């Protein structure tokens, strides 16, 4: 315990440290605007700090050393708002105005997701409203309403969801929990289940080149999750959810203030499949003998602590533990003589992290931040006669210095980082035709790097950011990561961005392709230890048009991104339907993604969001030094979604409906790289939910996949699971049909501050 405490004390973040600055509010006649309200707002309009001016219009307020919005109001004057950057003007001048109390803006209906116009990177935020539009038990389910990210399924037996972004697998997205890397390596597939959406305050999804300060791993973008704050909302939160298959989910959050400087929150989650074994008809609607969904038992706990010191020191600690058991496969039927195909996965996950930051030196807005994070993950998985026993120990340390050159129009962040990643994989395949004995594929990487990022704000409405990092990886040697972002807002209604950058990723092909374990394919693992680090350039641009209306803004976004792989791990399932080959990319591989989305408040309470995206990805398979470039299998060419949400006065009733149209995808060839192309069907999925809010509880009922669309025969050769042709990995649509669910969320106790 003493060691743990010592380690914890060593841990340390990057925050934009507030600085107290003084300014004055005057009317346009030169008279002071007495007792004016002054607020400093984040890009998402949430409040950073608020105060009131004195009788002479003077005030002192803490402002962050980054871009923020200053909002000033005073009775008798027009509201004032301006984008500021780490500083305040000496005087803030308000225009005189007569008061018109008729213009009362009634409680606005909150959009579930919105696009940032301030950040230099393209960023979509999903807030609590967005996270409660669907049941969203786990994080992976939170993206069904997002135009930016999509979900796919790993296989037809476990039904594990995976995310996709810019037409590429979620493995190329860097996922962060409050700016600390998570869900990577071995934890990539299951980590999404360990963060229940109920624990979160918001999610930020940014596309394209990310900041170099978080490492070299991001290729297509970043997803950052923000947890419910111990200083906000009511003290106790609890929820319970169940569906017609009795998959039951429960969460709690308890917040507590400890002394004057510490705040803490304890988060709990469990998922339990309560359907009795006897209800076989409910488990296997397609009659293939395999349960349509796994039996899951999952318990997660997390404890977060925040320390706010008097001298500007801020420190955040988090400890989490999760355990999960998943049973799936063939169900026992009367008269069955042969051995049953069973899938059993057991996961254990443990993480401890700290972020600490403090003001440094005499310069305003100058600070030092340190992040330390240690995680351990263990997976024991058996799929029929294939097995994978794997562990990963991951340490991430990052020290950042934030400052500016001359004035705050020239900001920079520079620092050093160190990463240790130790993976063990023990793979075996006992199918008679494959007979791969227990084989170890272990990997250890030490990565030490230095980085610098410069941001220029000197031209009005223009932000230019350029970053470079150099890392030495013990396995892959020198890695150079340049990244560049620019944002220009020529008018209030138009925002234009462009980005370019390189990212790297060390592949762990066995755990990242766990869906292929649900097949009879032979794994050709001879190249596993010879794989290069994956490297890709990503380029993109986006345009946001914001048209103000009487009630809200109509927001139109258009973006285009291209990812070019310089090296990539190819998982070849098309050379031979009875085999999987892993090897380095020999030819070319690239992905294009284009998206357009539109959001609007049609009238009071009714919001509309629509997105259309087009993806296409090409990869090259190599056999006998000959490259075969094909469209990547199982990537939907297009996806469109429409979400309509209606809330009655004060959001006491909320009605949500989402329609997703999933375009066709190419199905993998089963007999070599022949050009006989097969495509999946285009299909529609409908989600609907009704929520009724009371003072301390909200109750919801809803349905997923209301039209009951299911992939026909998702498992090939289900009658002979140990035979040569068995394959449950070719899944492009839901295996489980319509799912009706209901739940309740409780908020009670005192309000925290």
């Amino acid at each position, binding site marked *: 315990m003493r060691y743990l405490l010592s380690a914890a004390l060593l841990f340390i973040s990057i925050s934009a440290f507030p600085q107290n600055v003084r300014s004055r509010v005057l009317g346009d006649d030169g008279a002071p605007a007495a007792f004016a*309200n002054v*607020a400093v707002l984040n890009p998402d309009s*949430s*409040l950073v*700090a*608020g*105060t009131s001016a004195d009788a002479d219009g003077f005030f002192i307020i803490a402002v962050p050393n980054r871009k923020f919005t200053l*909002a*000033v*109001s005073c*009775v008798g004057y027009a*509201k004032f708002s301006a984008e500021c950057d780490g500083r305040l003007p000496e005087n803030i001048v308000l225009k005189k105005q007569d008061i018109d*109390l*008729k213009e*009362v*803006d*009634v*409680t606005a209906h909150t959009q579930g997701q919105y696009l940032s116009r301030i950040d230099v990177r393209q960023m979509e935020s999903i807030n609590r409203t967005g996270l409660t539009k669907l049941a969203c038990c786990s994080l992976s389910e939170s993206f069904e309403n997002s135009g930016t990210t999509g979900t796919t399924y790993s296989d037809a037996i476990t039904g594990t969801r995976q995310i996709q972004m810019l037409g590429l697998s979620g493995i190329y997205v860097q996922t962060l929990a409050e700016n600390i890397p998570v869900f990577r390596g071995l934890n990539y597939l299951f980590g999404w289940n360990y963060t229940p959406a109920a624990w979160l305050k918001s999610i930020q999804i940014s596309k394209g080149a990310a900041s170099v300060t978080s490492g070299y791993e991001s290729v297509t973008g970043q997803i950052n999750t923000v947890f419910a704050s111990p*200083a*906000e*909302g009511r003290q106790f939160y609890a929820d319970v959810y169940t569906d017609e298959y009795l998959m039951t989910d429960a969460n709690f959050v308890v917040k507590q203030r400890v002394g004057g400087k510490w705040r803490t929150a304890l988060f709990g989650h469990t998922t339990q499949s309560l359907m009795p074994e006897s209800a076989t008809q409910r488990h296997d609607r397609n009659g293939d003998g395999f349960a349509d969904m796994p039996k899951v038992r999952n318990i997660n706990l997390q404890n977060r602590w925040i320390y706010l010191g008097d001298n500007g020191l801020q420190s955040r600690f988090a400890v989490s533990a999760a355990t999960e058991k998943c049973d799936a496969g063939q169900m026992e039927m009367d008269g069955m003589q042969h051995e049953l195909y069973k899938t059993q996965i057991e996961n254990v996950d443990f993480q401890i992290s700290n972020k600490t930051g403090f003001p440094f030196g005499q310069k305003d807005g100058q600070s030092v931040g340190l992040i330390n994070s240690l995680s351990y993950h263990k997976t024991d998985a058996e799929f029929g006669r294939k097995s994978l026993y794997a562990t990963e120990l991951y340490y991430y340390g990052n020290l950042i210095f934030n400052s500016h050159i001359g004035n705050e129009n020239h900001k920079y962040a520079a620092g050093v980082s160190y990463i240790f990643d130790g993976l063990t994989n023990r793979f075996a395949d006992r199918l008679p035709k494959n007979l791969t004995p227990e084989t170890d594929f272990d990997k250890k990487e030490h990565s030490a790097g230095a980085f610098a990022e410069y941001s220029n704000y000197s031209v009005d409405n223009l932000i230019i950011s350029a970053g470079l990092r150099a890392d030495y990886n013990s396995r892959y040697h020198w890695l150079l990561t340049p990244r560049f972002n620019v944002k220009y807002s020529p008018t209030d209604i138009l925002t234009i961005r462009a980005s370019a950058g390189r990212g790297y990723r060390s592949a762990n092909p066995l755990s990242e392709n766990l869906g292929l374990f649900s097949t009879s394919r032979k794994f050709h693992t001879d190249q596993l230890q010879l794989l290069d680090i994956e490297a890709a350039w990503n380029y993109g641009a986006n345009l946001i048009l914001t048209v103000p209306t009487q009630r809200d803004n109509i927001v139109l976004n258009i973006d285009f991104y291209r990812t070019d792989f310089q090296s990539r791990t190819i998982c070849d399932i098309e050379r031979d339907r009875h085999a999987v080959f892993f090897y380095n990319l020999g030819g070319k591989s690239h992905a294009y993604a284009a998206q357009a989305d539109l959001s609007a408040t049609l009238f009071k309470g009714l919001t509309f969001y629509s997105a259309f995206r087009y993806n296409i990805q090409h990869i090259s398979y190599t056999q006998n030094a000959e490259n075969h470039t094909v469209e990547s299998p199982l990537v939907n060419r297009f996806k469109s979604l429409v979400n309509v949400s209606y809330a009655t*006065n*004060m*959001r*006491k009733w909320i009605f949500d409906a989402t329609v997703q149209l999933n375009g066709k995808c190419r199905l993998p060839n089963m007999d070599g790289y022949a050009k006989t192309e097969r495509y999946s069907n285009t299909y529609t999925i409908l989600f609907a939910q009704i929520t009724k809010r*009371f*003072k301390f509880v909200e109750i919801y009922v809803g349905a997923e996949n209301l039209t009951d669309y299911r992939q026909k025969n998702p498992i090939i050769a289900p009658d002979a699971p140990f035979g040569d042709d068995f394959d449950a990995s070719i899944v492009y649509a839901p295996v489980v049909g319509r799912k009706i669910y209901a739940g309740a969320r409780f*908020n009670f106790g005192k*309000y*925290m*501050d």
Partner: protein
Amino acid sequence: MKTRNLILTAAAAFCLAAPAKAQEAKKNVSDTVTFTVSMHCENCKKKVENTMQFEKGVKDLNVSLADKTVTIVYDSRKTTSAALKESLEKLNYTVEEKARK
């Protein structure tokens, strides 16, 4: 026939009169009050919104953090501005009635 005409006339008169009466009733019971409340952060705003929207008689609500005002449209048959002020004060804020219309 005469009876039928009488019923139809009565029904028509009711249909025409009812909305007018309802409108009149609605007009009479809705009242608006604005309070200046010593809120200082986003959390305060949420606290006021979540509490006041479920108070008896509250029909609509606008909380402005920038103006530090809470404007409430309420059913005067079910509550009074004094009762609403008291509910706000229970949240430990200084409350002052600002304007009425």
